């Protein structure tokens, strides 16, 4: 095994094999994604069982979704609507005519031994998503989106064998397939973030990867930079989070490059990503390509959407991320960067807009949301979609600062406390006695004493070093446990120094 130094330069890999002497070949990573998104309808796609996560095994199941003899599927109208809306959010053409097909294969989580999916006439085609990685905007094309049913789950800890739970069987999915336009793990992550946000915006899925409502198969191949021909790709399964996707792409690209550098060929295969080990492994028994024997499902009839209906779906879409971002820039005067961050998640944008209704200072509000809310979410490991806090709390905290009741630093701490405890900011200020000290008399006394005990910074200030003030300010803030009104403290200090 030769020493291989893989230094990342931009999006390409530089590969030097030391034992063979220095040899450099630049490789390009090519990534395509197949993303499965669970739709948040009330019921499953072909039967009226509840579409709910969790629950005791087989308690959301019926003869239809467990494939009993003689039963028949009936398509949920909401699934068609949500699939079309998802397509519109991703700039796709919505097909006027599409149909359902049977995809046959055997696995115990698939009770009919076929999955009802869409083969050659999917509901959406030819879309795209714009991503922005490292300041560069790029279009990632979406080949197609189709509707299909989910399979059940295997629970492996039975004493008699593996246990099969069909609760998830029949949950409606859309499968979003990209063209192999992605060129790095970063781009893939950006794509997934943008996709997730788009789905949240149109409200068709809660996109909770930890609950499996968003799943991703990743196709990776490599090729010499400049080559037009695609390399042999491997499909990676069991990629259960965006960070897993990121790591898996990096690992797999490296694995393939190492093979090529060793003079070996890449075998087209399906590989399983092991997050714990940080590696992919060839999957057992999946080597032979499946013959799915697709044919039109005779139990279901075609889905025909008129142009009017599609227009109707388009009109009923809520404001999407890009439109919102534009509006934030044009109407609210926010910077492109700020607008981008605020609209990156529907939940953050909603929070911001709700707060804005009661506190019409967009720039200030934006700073608090981006600086404080997002920081707290990150620290606490809370995803925006799971955020429970009422935006009113931020508004109240900001108003307390504006009214001079607390200073900005305290105000932000109060907000954080309010976020964590759900207590009203006013209450927190009372309970903790955080009211700003603005009493000039008291402060004057403290400051006079302080300057008397520490004359040097005053001399420095008089000598021209304006920054020398900060010592006094710091001391006063410390002595007042941060509650002193910084503006007044500054004014008094200057007055005392200048005499």
């Amino acid at each position, binding site marked *: 095994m030769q020493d291989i130094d893989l230094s990342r330069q931009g999006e390409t890999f530089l590969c030097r094999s030391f034992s063979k002497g220095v040899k450099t070949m630049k490789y390009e990573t090519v990534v395509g994604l197949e993303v499965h998104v669970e739709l948040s309808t009330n019921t499953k796609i072909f039967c009226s069982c509840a579409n709910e996560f969790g629950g005791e095994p087989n308690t959301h199941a019926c003869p239809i979704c467990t494939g009993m003899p003689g*039963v028949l599927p*009936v*398509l949920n109208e909401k699934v068609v609507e949500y699939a079309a809306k998802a397509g519109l959010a991703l700039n796709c053409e919505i097909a006027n005519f599409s149909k359902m097909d049977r995809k046959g294969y055997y696995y115990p989580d698939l*009770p009919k031994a076929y999955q009802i999916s869409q083969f050659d006439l999917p509901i959406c085609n030819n879309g795209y998503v714009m991503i922005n990685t490292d300041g560069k905007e790029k279009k990632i094309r979406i080949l197609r989106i189709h509707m299909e049913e989910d399979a059940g789950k295997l629970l492996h800890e039975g004493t008699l064998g593996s246990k099969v739970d069909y609760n998830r069987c029949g949950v409606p999915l859309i499968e979003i397939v990209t063209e192999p336009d992605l060129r790095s793990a970063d781009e893939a992550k950006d794509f997934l973030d943008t996709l997730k946000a788009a789905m949240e915006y149109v409200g068709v899925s809660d996109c909770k990867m930890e609950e499996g409502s968003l799943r991703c198969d990743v196709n990776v191949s490599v090729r010499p930079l400049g080559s037009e021909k695609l390399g042999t790709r491997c499909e990676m399964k069991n990629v259960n989070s965006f960070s897993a996707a990121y790591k898996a792409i990096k690992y797999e690209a490296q694995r393939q490059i190492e093979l090529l550098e060793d003079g070996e060929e890449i075998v087209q295969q399906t590989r399983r990503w092991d997050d714990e080990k940080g590696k992919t492994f060839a999957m057992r028994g999946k080597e032979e390509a499946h013959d799915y024997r697709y044919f039109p499902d005779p139990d279901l009839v075609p889905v025909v959407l008129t142009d009017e209906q599609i227009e109707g779906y388009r009109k009923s879409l809520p404001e999407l991320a890009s439109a919102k971002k534009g509006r934030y820039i044009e109407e609210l005067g926010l910077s492109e960067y700020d607008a981008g961050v605020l609209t990156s998640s529907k939940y953050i944008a909603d929070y911001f807009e709700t707060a804005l209704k009661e506190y019409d200072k967009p720039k200030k509000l934006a700073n608090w949301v981006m600086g404080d809310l997002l920081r707290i979410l990150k620290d606490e490991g809370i995803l925006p979609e799971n955020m429970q806090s009422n935006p009113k709390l931020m508004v109240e905290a900001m108003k307390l600062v504006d009214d001079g009741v607390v200073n900005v630093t305290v105000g932000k701490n109060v907000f954080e406390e309010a976020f964590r405890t759900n207590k009203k900011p006013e209450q927190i200020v009372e309970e903790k006695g955080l009211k700003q000290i603005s009493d000039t008399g008291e402060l004057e006394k403290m400051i006079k004493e302080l300057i008397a005990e520490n004359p040097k910074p005053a001399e420095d200030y008089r000598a021209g070093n304006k920054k020398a003030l900060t010592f006094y300010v710091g001391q006063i803030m410390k002595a007042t446990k941060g509650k002193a009104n910084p503006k007044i403290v500054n004014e008094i200090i200057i007055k005392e120094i200048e005499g």
Partner: protein
Amino acid sequence: MESYELTLKQTIKKIKSGELLPSELTKDYIERIKSVEGDIDALNETEFDSALKKAKDMDEKIKSGKAGALAGVPYILKDNMCTKGLKTTCSSRILGDFVPPYNATVVDKLAEADAVLLAKANMDEFAMGSSTENSAFKKTNNPFDFSRVPGGSSGGSAAAVASKQAAFALGSDTGGSIRQPASYCGVVGMKPTYGVVSRYGLVAFASSLDQIGPLTKTVEDSAIVLNAIAGHDKKDSTSISAEFSDFTEGLDKDIKGMKIGVPKEYFGVGLDSEVKASIDKAIKTFEELGAAVEETSLPTFDYALSAYYIISSAEATSNLSRYDGVKYGYRADEFEDIVDLYKQTRTEGFGDEVKRRIMLGNYVLSSGYYDAYYLKAQKIRTLIKQDFDNLFEKYDLILSPTAPSVAFKAGEKEDPMAMYMIDIYTVPINIAGLPAISIPSGLNTEGMPIGLQLIGKPLSEKTILNAGHRFEQARGDFPLPKL
């Protein structure tokens, strides 16, 4: 006259008038079954206890005046229609002791009409066959000649009606499985337009071809049953939404001027001469009734059988892939892993003919062959449909023999291809989704029944029933075997 000799129409009349008590009637039929079933072997399971209970309930309900259209009428159901709480086998080992926790929609409808379920009838396994010899359990005997087959796959249902074990029976027809056994057993068998009767709860064979229909002694009886079972079902996406009027209305209408076409392709080389003679005679009867009968052509006739076997096998292989020993039914005793479980269970559980069709179906759908077979067959389907559409521009009905011959001796057709050829006159109708009926037209010199087939354009059941009823009246009595 014994109550089991009555037609359905007569039975209903006597129950309504109070002359016949449902509980007495059911007892009569139970006795009848006990006396003849040993010779016929038409039934898989009898449900005498529940039948008697329901019949007793009907005694009261009739008096109240709130009873359904078929109150107290005993019937037999082909064993591929799910009955809640009652074993449903499709005459296959692979369903094991499967007891559905739901009813087929037709069973619900008949229950609403207050009919009484007597038994589940034997059939070719999963409805694949033309003689009921493919049943995993037993052969059924033709009531006209016990050494002969009753036809299939609804052989049990047809034989039960011919041996008067019920006032009517339900069968299913995918390529002729109601009509051909009706023809072999001297009873009336009807397949409605595709989509008229719900398929929910009918264990699927070929989803785009399957339809449920009645087997009865007379055409009018057929119309009465159709009234009870036809109608839109929101559980079946392929069920038609049209409003159906009373199918028994207009049966006696004059058929003067009705235009009937007789495709010459049905009178080719394989047709038995006595069957031909009987059909020719029937044509004369129609002419005497005032219909204008003329020879015509169905150019794609020769291709229908192949298209049928490709499409039906493909759909069947997919529909039967769920039988795997995991969720219900038979499971092999010994297996190494999940793949072996599937293979052992299915190999042990399915009969030979079913396995043949499963293999054939996967072959025609498999990658590399799909275009040459399945896609081709779907295109042929378009052409066949067009051919019929063209004919129905000129004709009100199409007439033909139901089968090329009378019922054959058990064991006679060993070669699968020879068995497939029997369906040749009936399959084009399923491919085009049309309604059709088989009516006894006469007996051959061996005393075996010959069936006449009338085919109509989609949703023309009333035209078919009208013509069939008038023919029946002109033909006169068609006696069933005295058993």
